């Protein structure tokens, strides 16, 4: 690396990095590599050794979507939580900025609780189909009262006597899987395409951006309907399609941001020092557009969640999952006698999307000093 040949002075050295340095490779990178190696081994074990249809561990048969979800959570741990914990000063600064927006702090708390419930909840509360009991069908929530209301199903039951709270808990899992996995896919593709288009320019830029134009004219929702029609609905397919066809906004945003960055002195200096194009994109352009990327990432999650819920509502969701959209649709025919079946999961969906929007906007204000959306 050419830039390292400068003589180091005390204040130009990044001491955090030196402390973490164990012979060239940072500890965190080693731990991350080992974790993902273990993850790959577990994945191989599930798909190569465990027979089809048998549970992977105990009685939990890990699905493809759940594997992806675990990978995304691990990525989040290593690329969001660990960096924040390692650079305390910047974290404290961002937190002071973020804290100014009280609604956003409350939203973050709400989302944190939902994430924990979504990840651990299915281990605590039984799957909704195991709570089917026709004797208890249409029980109202406890705060309404009535003969059937009971603490056992505090939020009421649906047409088959399934506990609404269990349906909601399993719905949280689905919504977070859709939102986080699709976001990770879309943001990764969008950032790479945008940064490469901006930095390489010329024909590369032209071809990539023309492709983005085409993708933008194909409304994702319509494309999803077409593909679900042809291949049948599965949560995996829906998430994959949202991720693979939902990145054009990010790519545009990153491109316009990166175009400014490529002109700045540090990119020029790196080039002059002999850094390869790929190195400049990876080490200088992408880190410097990260504030745009983080905001775009947070604000894209609610779009994906709403999209999946809308698909499920229309009956094109995965029939094997308990998406909120499906529960809302199922309660639609009983709207005048049992209003809670549709409205309570809908309220959760609404609050979740609202919370992501609040957090995204507050993040933009906190980490991007230039933005003035206020």
């Amino acid at each position, binding site marked *: 690396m050419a830039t390292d040949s400068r003589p180091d002075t005390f204040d130009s050295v990044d001491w955090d990095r030196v402390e973490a340095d164990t012979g060239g490779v940072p500890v965190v990178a080693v731990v991350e590599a080992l974790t993902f190696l273990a993850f790959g081994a577990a994945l191989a074990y599930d798909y190569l050794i465990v027979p089809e249809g048998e549970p992977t561990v105990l009685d939990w048969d890990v699905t493809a979507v759940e594997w992806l979800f675990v990978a995304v959570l691990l990525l989040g741990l290593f690329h969001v939580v660990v960096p924040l914990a390692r650079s305390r000063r910047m974290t404290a600064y961002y937190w002071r900025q973020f804290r100014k927006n009280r609604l956003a702090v409350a939203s973050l708390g709400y989302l944190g609780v939902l994430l924990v419930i979504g990840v651990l909840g299915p281990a605590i509360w039984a799957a909704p189909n195991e709570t089917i009991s026709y004797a208890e069908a249409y029980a109202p929530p406890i705060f309404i009262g009535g003969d059937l209301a009971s603490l056992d199903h505090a939020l009421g039951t649906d047409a088959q006597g399934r506990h609404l709270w269990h349906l909601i808990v399993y719905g949280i899992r689905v919504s977070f899987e859709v939102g986080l996995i699709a976001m990770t896919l879309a943001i990764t593709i969008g950032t790479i395409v945008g940064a490469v288009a901006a930095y390489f320019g010329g024909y590369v830029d032209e071809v990539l951006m023309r492709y983005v134009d085409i993708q933008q004219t194909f409304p994702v929702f319509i494309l999803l309907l077409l593909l679900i029609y042809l*291949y049948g609905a599965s949560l995996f397919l829906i998430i994959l399609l949202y991720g693979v066809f939902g990145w054009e906004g990010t790519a545009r945003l990153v491109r316009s941001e990166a175009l400014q960055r490529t002109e700045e002195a540090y990119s020029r200096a790196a080039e002059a020092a002999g850094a390869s194009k790929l190195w400049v994109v990876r080490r200088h352009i992408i880190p410097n557009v990260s504030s745009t990327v983080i905001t775009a990432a947070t604000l894209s999650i609610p779009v994906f969640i709403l999209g999946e819920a809308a698909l499920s509502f229309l009956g094109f969701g995965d029939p094997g999952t308990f998406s909120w959209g499906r529960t809302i649709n199922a309660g639609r025919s009983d709207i*005048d006698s049992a209003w809670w079946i*549709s409205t309570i999961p809908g309220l959760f969906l609404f609050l979740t999307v609202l919370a992501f929007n609040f957090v995204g906007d507050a993040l933009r204000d906190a980490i991007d000093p230039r933005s003035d959306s206020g």
Partner: protein
Amino acid sequence: MRWYVARRLAWALVATWLAVTLTFGVLLAAPNPGADAAAAQCASQDRDPEQCRQQYLESRGLDRPAHVQYIDYMTDLAALDFGYSESQEEPVTAAIADAWIYSAQYFVPSIIISVLIGYSIGLYSALNRYTLTDYLGSFVAYFGISIPNFWFAIVLILVVGVYFREASLLGVSLDALSLRTYYETSYGVFTVENAKQLIMPVIVLATASVASQMRYSRAQALEYANADFVKTARAKGASTWRVLVAHVLRVALVPLSTILIVDILAVLFAGSFIIEAIFQIPGLGRLQLEAITQKDTDLVAAVTLIPVFLAIVGNLIQDLAYVLLDPRIDYGDR
């Protein structure tokens, strides 16, 4: 500039061709759901499912080589022949011609409302930041982009269609305020009954796009809120509305118009499926849903392509409008 317009037109053609080819390719590569359904039906009648599948494919010319099918498909499309819809039992073009009027009835009012209300609140709140109106505006914006429109529609039905029918306020029955929950096709287009039953669909569809128009217009207007020409206009004593309409809107309109078409189309298309499913309006969205559930491939392909064509034309108009509206834009190198 002529060169730019010519290139832009050529690009629209290329994009159309690519979109059609992609759709064709996807349809060709995927298993045909209609053929599967035919095979399943035969199997249930103790006939050979494979033979039925072959029959189905042969009767529609789907067993021919791919390039023959492709040329056929493209020439048919060029002649605006989208094939025959089995679920509607009429040519696809006729089915679409019957359906579009029902979609337009709530589409057009929603667009007009969302632009008028969205822009006026957005511009006004940009010039009056940190006032009650501004906070109210941003509350409406968050509400609009966050509320799932299908859930909003259900809650509206619950309140307006179910609750109002029996409730009374200060002894006055609210029944007069209750609206039809399901669409009745027998009313004429320009009748009071028809307008009344369209209120709920329009409100649901407009909420989301009002919010996004408001956000964009506010962000745009904020850029000019402290510009010299705005200060001059104010110093000369122009009223807030005059400053907004004559000065701010004029410059903000150019970037806003570029967002408008594509964004509105995206919001409205996804919304139209849900609204037509909930309120049972026999428009394009419902046509598409029926086509999908009844495995009517020709109709699915056609109704998929319509939004794409509209988006391409919308993009084209928008880019040309951009060049005409803003003389500063350099269109030499693209």
